Structures are given as structure tokens and as C-alpha cells.
């Protein structure tokens, strides 16, 4: 029965996401501006070069578009929906529902992701293919693994959003915190520059953080830069991070609700 309740939450959130089409559309357009900026910077960088750090200009263009979609599967709204429930106090209603809070929020985020992600994906892929010669997945295997990696990316992204959202139990500065988190993710996930371009020490740091599972891993699988055993290893790393972050989220949630009960008692 619980599954039906979670599914209902997801469907409801998808409907909400659909009603904000216009602001979503402008969000995509604004995002395209950013892709364009990066695209032109890379074009200048590639003047007189054919391959840099294992990327051709076409691969770099593909990287830009695919990473943009991955980065924006979660809109700002979805990210803050976890914390806004806590801020306005409606979290207390959630506590009396016979649902796991973390699972329920995950179901909701999947609902909005299906709408927002698919829309963003279609628009960006169309523009990328038609206007910028972005290429498709390297091989059929890469395509299948990319889909798997994409799902894992969503789950890592959610687990991190959930953890950060819980901060609002302790602080009112959610906007600044969520923004700071977004920027850290943007850099260390490889959404801005592929990790291969990082200096060695910075790449080592990025390697040991969970964020690269959000963007870098799926994209390099898409491009066919990792395959075979290494590809499976990358997928396993993503899965391991999901387990770790999910458990961390559950632990912090327990800690936070204990505090909530003390305050309200």
C-alpha cells in the first residue's frame, strides 16, 4: 500500500511542475545563455588544437549539453521544497503520516524530475543536435549504461539535497546555504569544466567527493571515455555514495526530529 501512496505523491508533484511551465521554459532559456558562454570560451580555447585532455571540440560541446541537462534535472524549486516544508512548519503534518519522510520526499522529487527533466532534456538536446552538432552516445552499451548512471545521478542528487534541506531545522539562511551547495556541486561535479582539466591535486579531491557522480560519471560514460570494467566500477562508486548519503540523511533526520519534538513539547 505504501508504494501507492508514494506514487500518488510523485504524480501530484508532477502536476504541480506542469503548472509552472512558463517559468521552467525561461529557466531553460537562461540556462542556454550559460551554455553559449561556455561554448564560445571553449571554441577559442580549441583554436589551433584538435584534442585537449582527451576531448575534441565536438566531445566538449556534447559534454556541455549533456552536463547541463544532468545539472538541471533538479530545479531550484525542487531543491528548496524539502527545506520549505520545515520552515513553514508543515513538516509536523508529515510526521503523523505513516510514510517514511525521506522516501516521500524522494517520490515527490521524482515526480517533478519526470516533468522538468524531460522538458529540459528535449529542448537542450534538440538545440544541441541541430545548432551545435552535439553527438549521440558513443555505443549502444554506453547509451544503456548512461541511462543507468543517470538514474543513479538523480538519487545522489536527491540524497545531497535532502541532507542540505535538513539544515533548515537549525538555520534560517536556507537560500544562501542551498546556493552555496549548488556552486560547490557545480564545480566539483564537473558541470563547469570536465574533471580531466583540473590540476592533479584538485582532481584527487574531486575524485573522493560524491559530486562527480551527479555529472561527470554519466557524461564520460555517454562519451565512451570509460567502458568495460572501469565503467562498472564507476557505476558501483555512484551506488556506494547513494547508500552512504541516504543513511546519513536518515540519521540527520532522526536527530532533527528528536529536536523538533523537544521544542514542540
Amino acid at each position, binding site marked *: 500500500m505504501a508504494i501507492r501512496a508514494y506514487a500518488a505523491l510523485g504524480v501530484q508533484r508532477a502536476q504541480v511542475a506542469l503548472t509552472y511551465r*512558463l*517559468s521552467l*521554459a*525561461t*529557466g531553460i*532559456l*537562461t540556462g542556454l*545563455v*550559460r551554455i*553559449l*558562454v561556455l561554448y*564560445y*570560451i571553449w*571554441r*577559442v*580555447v580549441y*583554436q589551433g*588544437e584538435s584534442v*585537449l*585532455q582527451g576531448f575534441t571540440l565536438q566531445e566538449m560541446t556534447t559534454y556541455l549539453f549533456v552536463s547541463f541537462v544532468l545539472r538541471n534535472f533538479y530545479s531550484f524549486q525542487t531543491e528548496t521544497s524539502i527545506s520549505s516544508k520545515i520552515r513553514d512548519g508543515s513538516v509536523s503534518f508529515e510526521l503523523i503520516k505513516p510514510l517514511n519522510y525521506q522516501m516521500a520526499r524522494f517520490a515527490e522529487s521524482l515526480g517533478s524530475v519526470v516533468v522538468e527533466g524531460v522538458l529540459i532534456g528535449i529542448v537542450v538536446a534538440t538545440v544541441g543536435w541541430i545548432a551545435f552538432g552535439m553527438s549521440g552516445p558513443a555505443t549502444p552499451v554506453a547509451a544503456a549504461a548512461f541511462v543507468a548512471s543517470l538514474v543513479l545521478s538523480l538519487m545522489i542528487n536527491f540524497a545531497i539535497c535532502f541532507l542540505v534541506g535538513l539544515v533548515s531545522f537549525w*538555520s*534560517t*539562511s536556507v*537560500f*544562501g*546555504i542551498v*546556493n*552555496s551547495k549548488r*556552486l*560547490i556541486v*557545480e*564545480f566539483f561535479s564537473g558541470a*563547469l*569544466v570536465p574533471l580531466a*582539466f*583540473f*590540476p592533479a591535486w*584538485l582532481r584527487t579531491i574531486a575524485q573522493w567527493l560524491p559530486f562527480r557522480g551527479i555529472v561527470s560519471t554519466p557524461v564520460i560514460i555517454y562519451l565512451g571515455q570509460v567502458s568495460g570494467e572501469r565503467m562498472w566500477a564507476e557505476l558501483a562508486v555512484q551506488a556506494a555514495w547513494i547508500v552512504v548519503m541516504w543513511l546519513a540523511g536518515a540519521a540527520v533526520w532522526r536527530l532533527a526530529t528528536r529536536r523538533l519534538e523537544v521544542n514542540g513539547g
Partner: protein
Amino acid sequence: MDRTRPLRIYLLRVAQNVQAQAEYRLDFVIGNLATVLRQAVGLAFVWVIFERVGSLGSWTLAEVMVIYGLAGVPLGLFELLFNGLWRINGMIRLGELDRFLHRPGGPLLYVMTTDSALHGVGDLVTGLIIFAVGAAQVGLSWSLGSVLFTVGAIVCGTVLHFSINLISASVSFWVVGLRSSLMYGVHSLSEFTKYPLTIYANPIQLLLTWVVPFGFAGFYPAAILLDRPETTWIATLLPLVTGAFFAVSLLIWRAGLRTYESTGS
């Protein structure tokens, strides 16, 4: 009426905003942390690229820093001084503009001071630091003239941000359903001008010079300071373009106000 009265009202309202937000000291710190991070991530991106390729077309890292920094300062000043413009759409939609219509000094004075984003301080300070470091590395020789020019360029850039945002916000008088999305979209174009304008395709350069002239709020004055001959003649138009856009933005705002009053909504 006392000529300085509008200015006093303005300063009083900004002071009020600052005072109100000073209540939340942690919000201020974290909000600024996010803006500083944004600048840092943007700069880290440039730095990673330069680590690999040494230059961006004909521009050195230090030169890009001068442009990047000089573009950040007017943005920070705009957020700090006129951030209330972001609320115009909401005020029109909800009829909240009414209460400002008959106050001394005119409604715009009150609208632009409904918010002062203290996180603008982060943009302002990091912009100045990046600019100063870049300028020192380029070896700019400072004279009274070039200092005055830089200050003038920052003032013009801030006025340009004000004018462009006022124009795109005023569209809401005629198309309320847009929410703030048009404003966000137009505003996001300023992203281009943190980097040398000459790296972009011609249509983008023309757009950012003549239609949405963010190019003058950073790039062109920086090019003059850096003594780059290819853009100097356009750069000399800075005061003209600023004045023209300022005048046009006020005209559009007034025209919008007239339609607002006549519908009496």
C-alpha cells in the same frame, strides 16, 4: 519642495533595509558566502582553462581578470542599491503599487528601495579584489585620469544595470503573466560580459553592445584601461549609451505607470 528630499528618502529606506537585515547576521554571512563562492567558482573555471592553454584567444589571464572584476562591481552595486526592481512584477500583479503612487518623490523611488540585497556586498568586494589583482598583474599604471575613468565606468555600469532591468521589469505593465521570467532572462545576458566580448559570434556581440548593452558595464571600459585598440572607439560611447538607456528606461516606466493608473487595477 526641498531638492535633496528624494535623496534623503532613498538613503533612509536603504538604511531601513540594512537595519532590518542586520537582525539576521548569519543570513548576511551565508548570503555573502554564496556570492563570493559564485565569483570564486567562475574564476576557478577561468583559471583551470588558463592552466591548460595559457590564453583565451588574444587575452591573458590577468586581462580576463580585469574584465571579470570590473563586470562584477556594477552588478554588486545594483543588487545593493536598487534590488527592489525585482519586485515590480509582483507589485503590479498584486496591486501593491497603489500605496506608492502618491508619495513624495514618485513611486520609483519607493519601488527600487523595497529591497537592498546585502549579498551584493559580496559581488562588489570580490569584483574589486579580482579587478585589482588583475590590474596589478597587467601592470596598469594608475593616474588621476584612469582612476576617475574607472570610477566613472563603475557608475555608468551600475546605471546601465538599473536601466536595463527597469525596462525589462516595466514590460510587466503590459504583460503581467510573464512574472519575473523576462527580467531574469535579460539579466542573465550579463553573464556573457564577464569575458572578452570579442570571443563571441557577431550577433551576440551586437546584441550585448546595442540592444542589451551589458557590454558597456564591464568589458568596454576594461578594454580602454587595458589599451586594447580593437574596441576603443565603441568604448568611448559609454556615457552616451548610458545616458540614452537611462532616459529611455524612465520614459518606459512612466508610460507603464500611466497604463497602470488608467486601468485602476
